[in-house]
């Protein structure tokens, strides 16, 4: 069984994001870029499945700029076998990402696709679910545990009230939550080995999808600022302030 893992190149989660003064977007010039953390968890899960013998091959794919090869190489260094870059400098909306991924799924024929639950740049949390719908596959989103059961899957999901377990007929879609696993760091020898692993580059046109963006950005603004308040010295002062000044007790 083959596992396909879509990974996104995003601004590093430690970077303090700044809105451009002209409100057209955020400043991405010279900021550190990384693999979306939820995608790292997805790669780790797929590699563990192959190591455990429940998958034969792990293929990673990214839709993004030339430089997204860095994130694909990282995935290869973590243990993925092969990578595909669908190269574009356009912003591709989740619906189009899902359509491109669908065409890759149809070509590659994986038994499982593991995506991140959300990309920490657009915070959309929708690509995996969209891909599942377009393929007519079942989904286990926000997964904290994935078990293979023949061609089928049992997925434990993080939901608002706690945990839920669903059974899915394979092939299926899984999206990762934080507790699924702890991604490994790639070792130096593995980083060297990853340089020799196959990485195919293709154009969006090769996937047969014509981009059709639906959202026009009107503006990107700073969030309302919250000012620091005061330091109090004692718990008595705190309680008194909460009661009389803030009126919340």
């Amino acid at each position, binding site marked *: 069984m083959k596992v396909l893992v879509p990974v996104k190149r995003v*601004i590093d*989660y430690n970077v303090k994001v700044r*809105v451009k003064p002209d409100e057209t977007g*955020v400043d991405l010039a010279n900021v550190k870029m990384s693999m979306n953390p939820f995608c790292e968890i997805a790669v780790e899960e797929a590699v563990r499945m192959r190591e455990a013998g429940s998958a034969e091959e792990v293929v990673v794919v990214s839709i993004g700029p030339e430089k997204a090869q860095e994130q694909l190489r990282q995935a290869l260094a973590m243990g993925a076998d092969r990578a595909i870059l669908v190269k574009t400098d356009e912003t591709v909306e*989740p*619906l189009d990402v899902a359509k491109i991924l669908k065409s890759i799924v149809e070509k590659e024929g994986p038994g499982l696709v593991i995506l991140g*639950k*959300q990309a*920490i*740049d657009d*915070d*959309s*949390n*929708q690509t*995996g*679910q*969209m*891909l599942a*719908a377009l393929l007519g596959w*079942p*989904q286990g*989103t926000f997964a*904290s545990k994935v078990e293979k059961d023949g061609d089928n899957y*049992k997925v434990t999901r*993080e*939901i*608002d*009230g*706690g*945990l*839920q*377990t*669903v*059974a899915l*007929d394979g092939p299926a879609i899984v999206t990762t939550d*934080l507790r699924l696993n702890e991604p490994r760091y790639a070792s130096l020898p593995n980083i060297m080995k990853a340089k020799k692993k196959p990485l195919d580059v293709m154009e969006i046109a090769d996937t047969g999808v014509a981009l059709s963006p*639906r*959202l*026009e*950005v*009107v503006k*990107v*603004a700073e*969030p309302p600022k*919250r000012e*620091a*308040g*005061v*330091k*109090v010295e*004692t*718990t*008595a002062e*705190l*309680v008194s*302030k*909460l009661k009389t000044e*803030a009126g*919340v*007790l």
Partner: protein
Amino acid sequence: MAVLVIAEHDNAELKDATHKTVTAAGQLGGDVDILVAGKGAGAVAEAAAKIDGVRKVLHADADALEHQLAEAMEALVVPLADNYDAILAPATASGKNFMPRVAAKLDVMQLSDVVAIEGADTFTRPIYAGNAFMTVKSKDAKKVATIRTTTFAAAGESGSASVESVDYAGGGEKSSFVGAELSVSDRPELTGAKIIVSGGRALASSDNFEKLIEPLADQLGAAVGASRAAVDAGYISNDHQVGQTGKVVAPELYIAIGISGAIQHLAGMKDSKIIVAINKDEEAPIFQIADYGLVGDLFKIIPELQEELAKVGYAAKAPA
């Protein structure tokens, strides 16, 4: 214009998130209908019919809808979409699970976590963990959106809409419910609580969480929140995580104890009315957004705080 709101419920009780989503729907203009999908959820449908500004309630009752699994919800909602210009659900774990499937089937881009409706086709939503707010104009003929409930007031309950049955024709057979482990607690739900006491990595054990954070919460009648670090370390279950990738809350009072204030945590709580931070590091970033900061050791401060609260009428509760 007609808007369909998909109700949040557990077959027994209609959740407040629904009322808030109805308010958002009202801002789009036009008729607002509610879909209650479940099993034996008649009482929920009746409750939904009372929400102000609702034209009618569609009630779908089927075994396959009991847990609102995404595949079944897609199969139910997509055919109903013909009659609507917009479909809205609260941005809860459930709404986030099925709504993008509906959007993809309708060939539209979902607007995730909408915090403001600027017009019938223009919406504002947070990106980059709330470090920026993006306003977008949707070119899709039908709008599909999930609504961040902390920014919309709940619609009232003095209406009397009619309830109509709709059929579920099947389609969700590739997935099935196996089981659930749900937290049982007498405490208020995190997303609706007036006061939240939240603990971080500094608590250092589930035992301390139980002995310090929980009694303080109970004394205040508060919900319990946590940082990712506290959840990852197993001090408390996942459904308590507040943040960019956990729950978004906006209580009257949020007390962050032993939490540093990473942007991913702030994303989930910085709209709270009053924020209190208790941290031994006076440089902790959480102090930059706290209305009241107290620098010190939580192991000493929490018991003191409990005593002070008792003096102003918040009696300590006996442990359950």
